[in-house]
């Protein structure tokens, strides 16, 4: 595969130079575009070139040796904690049901754990048609080798077309190894999925380059098509009241699964705040100017029953610990109300909160990008507005 510039067509307009996310394009001595080896084949220049002067050549289509049609069904791995399904499982169920509308294939959950029947019922209630279950005491604990073994063997046995998991630490740990064992593709941290109406391929949409670009990725010749989905990026499946479906149980012993790594002990992370479960979040950024000013944010949050979030600038300044960080490299949140105070709205921050139901932004700079995503934008000084707001909330209680 090679990327080439048709020097006759190139006018040296520099559009490609400006769009290349890796800075691999420069103009040569004749003022024509040249692309160096740092190119990541993202195709943005191919798309943006007004003269259609850039193309990728030598991309032969190799046909798959296996019969892809024998792979049927949309699977999702349902994560659980202490015998209860976590919200990400319902999100995966929701997106799977959406895919099934076009693909017309079964939606199936996969559960590993000790008491799975109730959880399976819950998935039926959310619209799943079938649930694959492997039951054992030991499976309540995440063990990389065991989970990889079970997942791989189930996939080999039942041949699903699509396998989804959440891009949680657990999903991002064992799903890549599973995909590698099956020698198939895996798209990471997707924020949306769709089925191509013509090819019926899974279109996997994900942010890359620090959220500056979105990419659509497909897996043409390998099955299953696998993806991890960013938590809170897609809608949960709603309860339907229906409680029937098929449970398929495979005997744990039949897998002969062993774990090479021994678990010696466990320790809870101190004072975890569950930002992802919070319905209201009040976040502070560099505009606070000092760690002690987070008091004001905490106060406001407390008055409206919210949790405290932060931008990376605030976390990096040491004003508040990392678990509070919202964004690309922090938590992705989708509360009912998100209040951003003194946060500019960098793309990496937006990546973690822009799908919140209602966004209020307070910033003294009317051009701050945060206002582009805000439902209510307040151009003002946080040190003037927030104390007044706190007063109102306190007095009218």
């Amino acid at each position, binding site marked *: 595969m090679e990327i080439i510039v048709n020097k006759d067509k190139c006018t040296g307009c520099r559009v490609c130079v400006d769009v*290349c996310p*890796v*800075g691999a394009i420069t103009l040569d001595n004749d003022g024509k575009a040249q692309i160096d080896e740092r190119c990541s084949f993202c195709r943005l220049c191919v798309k943006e070139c007004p003269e259609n002067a850039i193309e990728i050549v030598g991309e032969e289509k190799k046909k798959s040796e296996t019969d892809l049609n024998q792979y049927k069904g949309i699977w999702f791995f349902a994560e659980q904690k202490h015998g209860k399904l976590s919200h990400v499982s319902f999100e995966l169920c929701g997106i799977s049901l959406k895919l099934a509308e076009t693909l017309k294939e079964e939606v199936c959950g996969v559960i590993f754990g000790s008491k799975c029947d109730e959880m399976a019922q819950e998935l039926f209630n959310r619209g799943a048609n079938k649930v694959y279950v492997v039951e054992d005491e030991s499976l309540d604990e995440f063990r990389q080798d065991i989970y990889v073994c079970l997942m791989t063997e189930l996939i080999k046995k039942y041949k699903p077309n699509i396998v989804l998991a959440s891009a949680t630490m657990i999903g991002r740990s064992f799903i890549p190894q599973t995909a590698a064992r099956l020698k198939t593709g*895996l798209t990471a941290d997707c924020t949306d999925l769709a089925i191509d109406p013509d090819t019926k391929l899974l279109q996997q949409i994900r942010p890359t380059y620090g959220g500056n670009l979105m990419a659509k990725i497909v897996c043409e010749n390998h099955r299953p098509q696998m993806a991890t989905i960013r938590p809170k990026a897609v809608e949960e499946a709603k309860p339907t009241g229906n409680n029937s479906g098929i449970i398929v149980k495979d005997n744990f012993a039949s897998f002969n699964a062993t774990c090479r790594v021994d678990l010696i002990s466990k*320790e809870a992370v101190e004072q975890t705040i569950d930002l992802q479960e919070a319905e209201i979040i009040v976040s502070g950024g560099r505009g606070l100017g000092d760690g002690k000013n987070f008091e004001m944010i905490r106060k406001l949050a407390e008055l409206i029953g919210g949790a405290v979030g932060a931008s990376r600038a605030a976390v990096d300044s040491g004003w508040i610990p990392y678990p509070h960080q919202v964004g690309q490299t922090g938590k992705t949140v989708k509360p009912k109300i998100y209040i951003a105070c003194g946060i500019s709205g960098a793309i990496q921050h*937006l990546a973690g909160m822009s799908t919140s139901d209602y966004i209020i932004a307070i910033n003294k700079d009317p051009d701050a990008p945060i206002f582009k995503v*805000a*439902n209510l934008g307040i151009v003002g000084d946080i040190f003037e507005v927030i104390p007044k707001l706190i007063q109102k909330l306190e007095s009218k209680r």
Partner: protein
Amino acid sequence: MKYIVCLKQVPDTMDVKVDPVTKRIVREGVPSILNPYDYYALEEGLRLKERFGGTTVAITMGPPQAEAVLKEAISLGADEAYLLSDRAFAGSDTLATSYTLAQAIRKIGEFSIILCGREAMDGSTGQVGPELAEHLEIPVITYVSKIINVTENDMECVRLLEDHYETLKSPLPAVITVIKEINEPRLPSLKGMLRAKKTQIPVWTKQDIGGNDLQYGQDGSPTKVVEIWRPEIKKEGKIIKGEPDELAEAIYQELKKLGAA
């Protein structure tokens, strides 16, 4: 004992310049840097050597320019470095990237721990570490925050998982991916920089590392990027200016409507 650190060169997206006249983003000459997470992997690779003896080897797959991150690794204290560079590696997804790294590691020979960053800043899949372990048929431990002890045959370490830490014991060799918490990376020394300058870094091509032709580059990559675009972020919102009291009142009324006040 050999500790092999996998390093990736990435574009420095933090350092985006804006043309003062046209206000357009200038990408030309976006500097390439070592993936920030990989400093922690490298530092840990160096500390392992200092604590338990052995050598630290740095490898990267990338274009000829990626030699720079290996030079940096040497200046920080790595003993050896190898650049995997071949046109045939172009278009690799994580399956092909990890296969290529695995082949090179096999060629390097006996090793005890392979260290990777938590994720790369550009592709940010975090998949290369776990997939690499699978190609080499050895265990992987993700999100490692501390290495407690290493012997010839095994390693004890702590890893973070969502809401708790686990202490684990793994046989060696193994792959780990590390998080920021694990250490505080050092700065290069003058002596190190001089050594880096003098060091010739071997370049390995597909020929050098052998293996199956069909598992490299685009042929060995099941996933394919078919489209790419800039995200549109736009919401129909209202923006208000005014006296602090009016502004606070506007928020208060809105919170009331939303049932929060």
